[in-house]
């Protein structure tokens, strides 16, 4: 396999970094932010825990994607990427993106009905459309992986 080893190595370093930043966001930054917002606006304080849980879940979805990419990179390095086992991790990525999409869609609808300025709605719309594009791109890439796996299986049968 002719995969750029240094690119994979650097990507792994940044995946670890990304995962670390996500954990900080999940456990410290976002809960702290929502606590601060609850203290600033006591009449919205009831939103503190739902917002904290939803934010932690969305970060969890990204973490699942990061772990799945890590596993797929290992399979690339061991030249096992064109096998049935890789679809488990590709489906994990698609599942995480799908779950995040549903949650983001619900937030979008809830905020859309309750917000009085268009700023947050447009920001949510941007994120929602972005996640949709990434999710659909993953479906296309999974189909390509399926084709490549079939070709590899056929070629392995050639003596």
């Amino acid at each position, binding site marked *: 396999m002719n995969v750029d080893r240094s690119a994979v190595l650097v990507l792994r370093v940044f995946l670890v970094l990304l995962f670390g930043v996500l954990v900080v966001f999940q456990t410290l930054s976002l809960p702290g932010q929502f606590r601060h917002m609850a203290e600033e606006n006591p009449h919205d304080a009831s939103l503190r825990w739902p917002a904290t849980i939803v934010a932690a879940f969305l970060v969890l979805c990204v973490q699942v994607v990061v772990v799945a990419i890590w596993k797929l990179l290992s399979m690339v390095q061991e030249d096992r990427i064109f096998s049935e086992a890789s679809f488990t991790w590709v489906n994990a990525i698609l599942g995480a993106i799908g779950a995040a999409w549903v949650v983001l869609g619900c937030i979008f609808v809830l905020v859309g009905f309750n917000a009085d300025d268009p700023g947050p709605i447009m920001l949510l719309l941007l994120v929602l459309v972005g996640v949709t594009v990434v999710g659909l791109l993953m479906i296309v890439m999974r189909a390509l992986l399926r084709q490549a796996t079939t070709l590899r299986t*056929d070629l392995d*049968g*050639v*003596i």
Partner: protein
Amino acid sequence: MAIVVRIDVELAKRKMSVGDFAEQVGLTPANVAVLKNGRAKAVRFSTLEAMCRVLECQPGDLLEWVDE
């Protein structure tokens, strides 16, 4: 498989062992076994050429079509 690879016949004619044949052609013994028992899906021309060179025969001597 409707196409049979008659390696065993040519090997018997030349009194060559499967191990020697595999080594000279550059195949693994496992792949030679796949060819012999008709489980092969495809053969490279380079493999066919090497088999013909080692066995000093033509492709037609190795490949045979049988009606299933």
